[in-house]
């Protein structure tokens, strides 16, 4: 059998067909996801030689990242801010999702969901700037409160610190949190709630014992969807965080672009990713418990 025949056979095999079919997304994924990650991983073990990178493998970057008090402070702050944003967002999203699912006529539900996506009609960056206008020293909140005579001088604790970051991110991610919870609530068979009441529980207790556990997969999805991007958010802390509101992405940017220390930046980035992975795994594990339901 000559080589042409073999080639022909390979080209005609099912495996080759399959590979050809998936190759565009596979190449896309490798080039845009795996390759940069791999590069980041390699960088994180190299040595910084100021403006150059020395090909000397060392774990020193990680030792620095995990012992430097500055990195630790920023890392913990990122965690804390992301947790706060997640809690605020999910806590506010749940009642909205509940209302739309349980108290809006079925024919109006899609309109409500459409309205909920309105914040997305404007660019994220512009929304962040708008919050600056709203929360600023002479902003809408302060001039409004002064005009009403509630306060005498502008509030300063609402801009250029963690608070403003939390407010802005909570607003930005609200629709992301509402939709998974809404979907989970929609899937609940309404006769289950009647059964809860029929078996002697009040509406409140039925909510607690039936609705909430059945909505948990949606809640956990919301938590992950909000938590993972917020912990690495760059724009909002950069523009609204002030010096006390800087988060890990700002630190990485500083290492890369200001200090030109790619290895240190990479080590911090990889460390942050490991942290997110660890926390996500906890939630995924929790979700498995709640996902024991039908199919």
């Amino acid at each position, binding site marked *: 059998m000559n080589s042409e025949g073999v080639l022909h056979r390979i080209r005609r095999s099912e495996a080759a067909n399959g590979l050809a079919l998936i190759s565009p997304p596979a190449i896309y994924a490798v080039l845009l996801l795996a390759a940069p990650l791999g590069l980041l991983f390699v960088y994180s073990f190299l040595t910084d030689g100021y403006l150059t990178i020395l090909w000397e493998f060392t774990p020193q970057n990680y030792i620095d990242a995990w012992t430097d008090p500055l990195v630790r402070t920023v890392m913990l702050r990122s965690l804390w801010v992301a947790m706060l944003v997640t809690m605020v967002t999910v806590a506010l999203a749940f009642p909205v999702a509940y209302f739309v699912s349980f108290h809006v006529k079925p024919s109006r539900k899609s309109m409500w969901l459409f309205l909920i996506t309105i914040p997305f009609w404007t660019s994220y960056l512009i929304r962040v700037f708008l919050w600056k206008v709203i929360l600023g020293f002479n902003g809408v909140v302060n001039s409004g409160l002064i005009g009403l005579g509630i306060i005498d001088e502008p509030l300063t604790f609402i801009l250029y610190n963690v608070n403003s970051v939390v407010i802005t991110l909570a607003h930005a991610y609200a629709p992301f949190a509402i939709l998974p919870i809404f979907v989970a609530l929609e899937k609940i068979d309404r006769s*289950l709630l009647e059964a809860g009441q029929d078996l002697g*529980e009040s509406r409140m207790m039925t909510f607690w014992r039936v609705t909430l556990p059945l909505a948990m997969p949606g809640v956990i999805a919301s938590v992950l969807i909000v938590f993972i991007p917020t912990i690495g958010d760059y724009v909002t802390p950069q523009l609204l965080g002030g010096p006390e509101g800087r988060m890990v992405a700002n630190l990485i940017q500083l290492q890369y672009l200001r200090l030109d220390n790619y290895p240190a930046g990479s080590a911090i980035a990889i460390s942050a990713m490991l942290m997110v992975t660890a926390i996500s795994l906890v939630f995924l594990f929790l979700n498995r418990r709640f996902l024991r339901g039908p199919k």
Partner: protein
Amino acid sequence: MTTSAPPLSKVSEAERAARKPLIELENIQKYYGDYHALRGITATIRQGEFFSLLGPSGCGKTTLLRTIAGFEDVSSGVLRIDGRSMDGVPANRRPTNMVFQSYAIFPHLTVEQNVGFGLRRDPRSRADKDRAVQEALEMVGLKGYGKRAAHAMSGGQRQRVALARALILKPKVLLLDEPLSALDKKMREQMQVELIKLQRQVGITFILVTHDQEEALVMSDRIAVMFEGQIAQLDDPETLYRLPRSRQVADFIGTMNFLPATIATTTVDGFDVEVAGLGNCHIAARQSPGAATGEVSVGFRPETLTLLYEGQTATDRESPGVIEEVVYYGDMTYYDVRLDGVAAPVRLSMRNVFGRPVLDRGTRTRVAWSPGALVLFR
């Protein structure tokens, strides 16, 4: 009626009458906007009774059940359970429990947790409650299934879980919303018998909603037949079947033949009637659900007619006709017979006892009947 298990021994008339009323419905009205769902329901359901609400879909039977459960409030009228008005009493405070059509088994809980759901505020110790759950599971034949995830149970098993979950709370009334409609025929017939036995065993009043007349006849002590938000007739199964009070009820329950008739004279104890195809006969007053004059119709069940074979004679009356259609069912044969002088055929049923041949279409025959089996309708 040919394939179901025979009804278990029914409660005697005297015993039934002695039972005290448990649920009293007085002129219950229910509107959904302009839609008048319940149009003045008045009925009394007695302690320990197996009561059925029977009717076509949209007749208001489920609405009435949900009203008793407390999921719908009445627009007007009074609902009393055990002498206490249920006005403003929410579902969770009513002495009723429900088996939902979808069973409404909590998918996130195990079988045990489902059955024990309503025991949270029960003051008994945990061990006692656990024992009660096991007993309830045993009662419905699910012993040993307690640790299973509820969503892993089959349709019939879910229904048993739903029953155990409701009965463990010892309600005064158990409400069953078409509980057997999702099961296959064999399973349904088995569950009918089990439900009757269970009801005898626990002595709780059962109210069953069904659109299946056979199911209602097999299971109930009394049946309320509903049409368009009203009770058309409330009687025990036998009366309902033998003496339906309107053509609508007669049509809904079993098969009934109708023949046009004219009342010749009204006598003290009934009517002298000229029935098409059957001739003159006397129908007693109790076989006529209301006063009637002039043009009426006469109804009779297929099994009250008998096909006469060569050489046989009727014990009472007989009329000639031609067999137009033969439907063989195994244990029974249904014949459509066109009586002389009548356009539409009447249906009659014959048991296929040993040695009795099935007759062919087109056979000239005679049909034996008795005026005592006729019902007069306006």
